[in-house]
């Protein structure tokens, strides 16, 4: 009888122990290695990484392979990958302006470089169409308003791969080396286009440039020349007044501005097309000036072939319209009216924004062999 009593207590105790609420643990099917972005000094600490696509070593490596693999377009007789146009030597744009897809159709605007995009929380593309938190964001079937969408758009857009995601994923699925890489990164050997986009987006988020001559100057490692210092001053004062749109350590506010280069606005893909705010007519993203020496031609339509032409434009070439951004305070003078020495110094400063270690970083380059 006593033994029955003791056993009863033990049973009750064990029942209580097991019945109480435990903290739920999530079982991951695989164990990808978390990857932490090392944020350079002075750079933003808010990173645009969606919660459903955390960075992992395996995801990034898979993404690098897919980024450069021409079979991504899923066509038997054509090879085209992201890397076909987004060339590291040109800060991950093509260095010639408009991208040309498999159909020969040019992109509607010149390419934007893939650099420091993880720090951009204000929308992607020249008109900021891809932005998760924007009330204007709506791309049916897309992946959430972030870089993942751009990967998806790259496959189906007529001016890019002009393919479809089913062909792309089927092609990748049938390459023996890829399913195990997907397993390591996402827990399944089944290739989905969503995971293709996620992997490529993870890789793109690692493309961080913070080692230009100017960065080294900020860190106290080098000095700028007198001409470069002069240019730095013009950039950051009302002399050339570049900093209001191209300021901060990113050399862009990531905002959208009409910079007074037109009087007629009929582009169906400007910022107005996204916001429907009439004052956004002719407005486009102010792109980063990092690596600007490598990313001509310039402006959304590539109208300026050289940096000299760009500086001349801002100096004497502004065109009045009611839509010119208020930051263009020298509009009615035609521009900031720099003399030749000032222009040369400004250019000298802009050239200090070139980061040769970024464009030659092996972690960003094409794998020696693809699967």
């Amino acid at each position, binding site marked *: 009888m006593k033994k029955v009593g003791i056993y009863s*207590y033990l049973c009750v105790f064990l029942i209580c122990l097991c019945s109480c609420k435990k903290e739920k643990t999530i079982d991951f099917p695989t164990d990808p290695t978390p990857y932490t972005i090392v944020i350079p000094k002075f750079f*933003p600490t808010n990173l645009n990484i969606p919660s459903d696509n955390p960075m992992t070593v395996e995801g990034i490596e898979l993404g690098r392979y897919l980024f450069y693999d021409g079979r991504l377009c899923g066509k038997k007789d054509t090879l085209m990958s992201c890397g076909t146009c987004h060339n590291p030597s040109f800060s991950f744009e093509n260095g010639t302006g408009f991208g040309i897809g498999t159909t020969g159709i040019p992109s509607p605007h010149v390419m934007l470089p893939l650099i420091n995009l993880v720090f951009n929380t204000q929308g992607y593309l020249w008109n900021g169409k891809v932005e998760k938190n924007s009330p204007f964001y709506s791309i049916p079937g897309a992946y959430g308003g972030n870089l993942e969408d751009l990967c998806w758009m790259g496959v189906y857009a007529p001016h890019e791969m002009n393919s479809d995601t089913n062909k792309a994923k089927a092609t990748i699925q049938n390459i023996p080396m890829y399913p195990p890489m997907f397993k390591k990164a996402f827990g399944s050997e089944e290739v989905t286009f969503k995971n293709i986009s996620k992997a490529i987006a993870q890789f793109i988020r690692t493309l961080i440039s913070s080692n230009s001559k100017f960065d080294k100057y900020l860190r106290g490692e080098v000095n700028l020349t007198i001409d470069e210092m002069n240019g730095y001053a013009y950039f950051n*004062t009302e002399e050339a007044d570049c900093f209001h749109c191209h300021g901060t350590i990113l050399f862009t506010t990531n905002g959208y501005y009409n910079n007074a280069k037109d009087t007629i606005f009929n582009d169906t893909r400007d910022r107005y097309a996204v916001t429907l705010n009439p004052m956004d007519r002719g407005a486009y993203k102010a792109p980063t000036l990092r690596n600007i020496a490598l990313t001509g031609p310039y402006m959304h339509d590539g109208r300026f072939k050289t940096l000299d032409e760009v500086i001349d434009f801002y100096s004497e070439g502004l065109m009045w319209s009611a839509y*010119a951004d*208020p930051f263009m305070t*020298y509009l009615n003078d035609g521009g900031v009216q720099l003399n030749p020495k000032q222009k040369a110094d400004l250019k000298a400063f802009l050239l200090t924004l070139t980061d040769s270690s970024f464009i030659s970083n092996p972690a960003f380059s094409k794998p020696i062999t693809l699967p």
Partner: protein
Amino acid sequence: MKMKKQIHIILIFFIFLFACKKEINEDTPLTKETGKIKFKFTHLIDGIPLQKDSIMYVNAAGNSYGVFDVMYFVSDVTLYKSDGSIKLINEWKDINYVDVDIPSTLTWDVYDEIPAGEYDSITFVFGIPTEKNKSFMFVNYPEVNMMWPDVLGGGYHYMMINGKWKDSSGIANNFDFHLGIGQLYHSNATDCIDSIYAFVQNYFTVSLPGSSFTLLKSETKEIEIVMNIESWFKTPHNFDFNYWGANIMQLQPAMQVVKENGYDVFTIGKINKEYK
């Protein structure tokens, strides 16, 4: 036998009672002699809510103008209690950014627990005090875009009001009505930063008339702070864009005018108990 059964039941009861882990809410104060404050920022021109992006106003100098952007910092908000004590808002942040294009910045849920009681008045610093206004202290959007170049004093703009005005020929011009650290130049050459010999801190303390309020225990008080934008252009000085031009970041005399006009730009709007 009956006694043994009762003991068993009692023991089983205590096993259940102590077996499960309780969550302790360590944040719940045992007593709450405090309340909360929520500031709401509104922007009027001539008593009417700001309508942006259109030249539809006339300032005291007779300039037709329109406002396209309004961004600014307020800091060191201080509450003065009737018993002589003061409460400085500083426990989570002491510098608050306001941007008319970012709705979330138009409300500031102050983190600090505010002692309950009678308050006589509220003051704040418009802009950022010298010791706090350091370059690179903000690295994220949107505050980072208010950077004030190091060559002009560093830190951050106190305010940007961007817009357009019609000059004496009736032609629309862009303006950047910016306030921040000013510069003194050896000569009249304000385009020569090599001739800068001193910087001027143009921030100032705003006292809000009619800002007395009572805060009850566990209450949240909503306090509306109103920027009357037209006041930037008058009292004691009429600000004439035709005289000062489109840019004033490197024109300390102009920023001095703006600062002196700024003391009465802000007023108190509604003070209400928040109903949840």
